[in-house]
């Protein structure tokens, strides 16, 4: 089966004052269709940088990122990168990043509107119903709870029916119960719609929803874990970070 995403030998360096930071140092990662993968690591481990590179928000220093076996994402022009983000992937941010002046309905449709396209008949209705936002479509973000806002953000990521969803700490601004409901939703959508989801997180409770967990440390993939419970995953993660029984 063809991989949705293939990352090979990815390096990313950037300057911070006089210092050069190596955020990614030869990362390899492959995502199969319909797979939910979590990248777990401490702050500064390079997991968000990986996500930004994959989303063509920043260019890697070296390495390749192939989406559905096509052109290297790293070599996309600015216009191509914009189209790639708009048509091929969906982005979910930790801070929701909804536009406060738009309604739920409009926030969800925004990528289509930006492309000058209209949603298919009933598409928005169905999506909002699926997200449990059917009654809230006319509201503005400041009238919604954190969980609702993140569901709107997920809806916005799904509206263009992308093959890949990238979620950066999607539960970082939510309490544990709401966070769990969001991850459950992502997991269900992944299965129902055969979406590939790459989640970046530092929480085992989030990562436990993934089919597999890639552990990052100092810009490298340190280990790959498959645990059933959050507790077991947490223990395995601690051990991997500590250098015990790593499975690269």
């Amino acid at each position, binding site marked *: 089966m063809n991989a949705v995403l293939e990352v090979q030998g990815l390096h990313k360096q950037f300057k911070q004052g006089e210092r050069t930071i190596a955020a990614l140092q030869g990362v390899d990662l492959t995502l199969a269709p319909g797979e939910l993968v979590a990248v777990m690591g401490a702050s500064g481990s390079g997991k968000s940088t990986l996500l930004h590179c994959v989303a063509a*928000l920043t260019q890697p220093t070296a390495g390749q990122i192939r989406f559905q076996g096509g052109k290297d994402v790293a070599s996309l022009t600015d216009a191509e990168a*914009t189209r790639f983000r*708009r048509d091929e992937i969906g982005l979910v941010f930790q*801070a929701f990043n909804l536009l406060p*002046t738009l309604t739920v309905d409009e926030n969800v449709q925004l990528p289509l509107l930006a492309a000058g396209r209209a949603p298919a008949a009933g598409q928005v209705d169905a999506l909002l119903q699926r997200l449990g936002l059917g009654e809230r479509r006319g509201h503005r973000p400041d009238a919604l709870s954190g969980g609702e806002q993140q569901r709107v953000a997920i809806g916005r990521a799904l509206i263009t029916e992308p093959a890949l969803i990238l979620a950066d700490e999607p539960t970082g601004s939510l309490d544990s119960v709401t966070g769990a409901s969001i991850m459950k939703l992502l997991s269900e959508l992944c299965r129902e719609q055969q979406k590939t989801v790459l989640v970046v997180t530092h929480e085992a409770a989030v990562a436990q929803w993934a089919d597999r967990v890639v552990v990052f440390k100092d810009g490298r993939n340190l280990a790959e874990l498959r645990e059933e419970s959050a507790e077991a995953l947490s223990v395995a993660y601690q051990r991997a970070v500590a250098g015990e029984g790593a499975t690269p």
Partner: protein
Amino acid sequence: MGVVARLSLAEVRQRPGRLVVTALAVVASAAAVVWVVSGYDALSESMDEVGEAYHGRYGAWISVEEGGAPAPKLLELLRADPAITRVDAVQQLQVVVSGPAGTEPAGPWTPTVGDAYGGEGAYMDGDGSADRHDHERPPVLVGTDAPEPPRALVAGRWLGDAPGAVISDHLAERLGADVGTTLQVKVDQDELPVEVVGVVKEVIASTVIGETVSDLTGARDPRRGDGPAAGAVYVRPAELERLVGHALHTNLLCLELRHGADLAGLHARWSERLKPAASLLSLADLKTALSESASTKATRNQAYAATAVSLLAALFIIFAALSMGVTERARELAVLRAVGISRRQTAGLILAEALGLAGVGWLGGLAAGWLLLLVAASDAAVAHHASLGPAAVALSGVCAFVGSLAAAVLPAWHASQVDVVQTLAGRRAVSAWRWLPHSVVLGLALVSLTPLILRVLPLEDGLRAALAGASLITLCLGFLCLCPGLIWLVERVCGPALAALLGLPAPLLRAQLSANLARTVGTCTALTVGLGLFITIQVWGYSMLGPFLPGRWTPPGLVSIPTCIAVQELPDYAALPGVERVVPLLVEQPRLADDVTDMQQKGESVVRQNNVILLGCDPSGPALAGEHPLFALDFVQGSREEALAKLLQGRHVIVPDHFVRETGLGIGETFRLIPPTSPTVTVEYTIAGVVALPGWHFVTKNAGLRRRLPRAAALTFTSAEDLRRDFGLDPTRIDLLGFELAHPFTERELRDTLEPLAERANGNLSIMTPSAIDDSLRTRTDAILWGVSQLPLITLLVTSLGVINAIVASIRARRWELGVLRAIGVTRGGLVRLVLAEALLVGAVACALSLSLGLSASWAGVSLAQFISFFGGLAPPIVIPWAKILACTGGTLLLCLVAGVWPAIQIGRSDTLELLQAGRGSR
């Protein structure tokens, strides 16, 4: 350094761009004040100089009415007055003078359409700019027995007992004459020589002085002058009698005063005693009158208006800038409050920033204004004085500091009210939209006050005018309150259209402006100060022009011949090539015996005067009767047939509609007139009909129908027979002809047609064609309105700097939003278009606000003018010069677009990730 100062400086370091742009706007506003007010300073400085140059060595003079020659006893009494050292009796008369061969003869001034503005029209611009040049001034023969010249002698000698003339240096230059030159002086048909024996300095008199003197003396006789004559040919009285053919009454008594003479005492002794046949006017009176003259007042008002406009512009720009600062720094302000900074200190922070802006703006404005004046003074083509006077310094300071502090009040209060917990928790403040309905209702209530006062409430005229004047302020406040509603409307109406035009998602433009309402209101209102004022001036100006444009009733041509032609010469005129029809007419300008126009109570106006013009014609002749009468009168009361029948009965008159409106008289009612030749009797005329006579003011002025007084209450029509009988007009002479040529003609063509016979009238013909008046009025109005529109346009330019501020702040506040848009697939071009669309929407709101305010204010201005101004009694319809208004609103949109270009490019070039990461904190 105190904490407030430290924090203020930190803000300056943080956002130097905004400080520079805002300070630039204040600098430009203050510089505009300096530029305009310096004109007033210069005028004030030159007032004494001008008055003394006009008076010469005389400290006062007495202007004597025609027929009111001073009795010898009066002269004796004057000479005995302790304040007076000498009295020189002077007789003056406009004449034609020609110099050596090859020079053009200088003749009495023949008014042309353009000249008409030098008198009455001057009120339209009020700056006295319509002064005639010296070379156009009519020469005046001055008979005097003065032993010394009135002004410095520059060549030759002063008059002695021997015949000879002393002329002014300007006239000498004009005629190419010098001492020893023989001049030809022509009076009526006779031309006699006189030798120049000396040359004196010219009387320096502008039209402003001429009008001021006329106002003070009551404009006795324009052909003889009310004061010292410019372009003078001084001769002894005996020589004058020889040249004129008969003795002239003294029309001026020039008084030499003792040093330190008590002028108040002189006035007390003589003013009342001389009335009504003469008036005493001293140098001090002239200076006082000049300082209170319409021109001086207009210049002073211009200075105040410039200050007010610039103050408002500075106020709204600074308000918008400070509001942005408070909104953007809400989190920082909350932290400051959390660590112990008091509410007062927080408010002080904003006030300190405002004062800083004011200081920089004022000093910069003074420097910039001074440089502008220096540049202008070095340009000979621009008559501007490089004078940074006290008024300019003070008023620019008022503009900068009052504007800044007023602008800081609301932002300072907002800053002091920041909710620490809510703000630090990142919760949005209560939406300003909550207040929208209240604001709209309040705005509508305030705006409706003006029409209520002007049209609905039963008020006495004086109170109505006073309240309506005050309501102009509530009108402006009302539109300020309506601004948020207008923003809401424009976002919903123009937003989607603009989005479609620019290929943007419509929802993105629905709340661009309202996201920070205070900022948008401030920016749009600042733009409205200039654009709204421009629209008001244009609409008011062109609306007020309407009644002055000749209507359909105007004959194709009117030719006035003050020197008259004999009745038997009429066929010669009719026989001229191309002449289709010549209609003889008579004209007289008698005073009204009673104050029927209520001029004393309501004040003088364009239709409230103490006299009327009577146009005499044959009621059954081609002037008024027949299928194609020369005057195609439009009757608004009565009918032509009835009116002409009454005119034939005698002592009936057709009057204009404004006359019946002002006097309250109607058909069948009478008014009394005083024949100028028999001031002790009155004659009574009955109104036979009422007609509409748009444009009669300039028709009468240009056709030379105002024979005795510069203004009249109305142009009226009566029977020529009545006119001859009641007013003593010579039945063998004609002084006015109505003309019609075989084809449509211009004033030039009519003048050319009459050329063969012009010599008979000493070349002294006043020719009027409606098209010439129309063209000239429109050209002149364009020029005047352009002149007064420059300040609003400069203000508009200055306030567009505020748009840059607003757009930059808007972008700064929404960086993360723009990052999100880039992240979900909006292109860089899309972001650029989005920012430009925001700038255009700001412009659209400003245009909508300016149009609403401008049209309302100009309507109020036109209505108000009927009660208080010189236009009192006129009721012109509103005329909207759409082409000019659309050009200016289009220009405003372009300015806003240009103001948005740099911020748009900046944001378009930004890195998406940086926008997402760095912008979040600015929320």
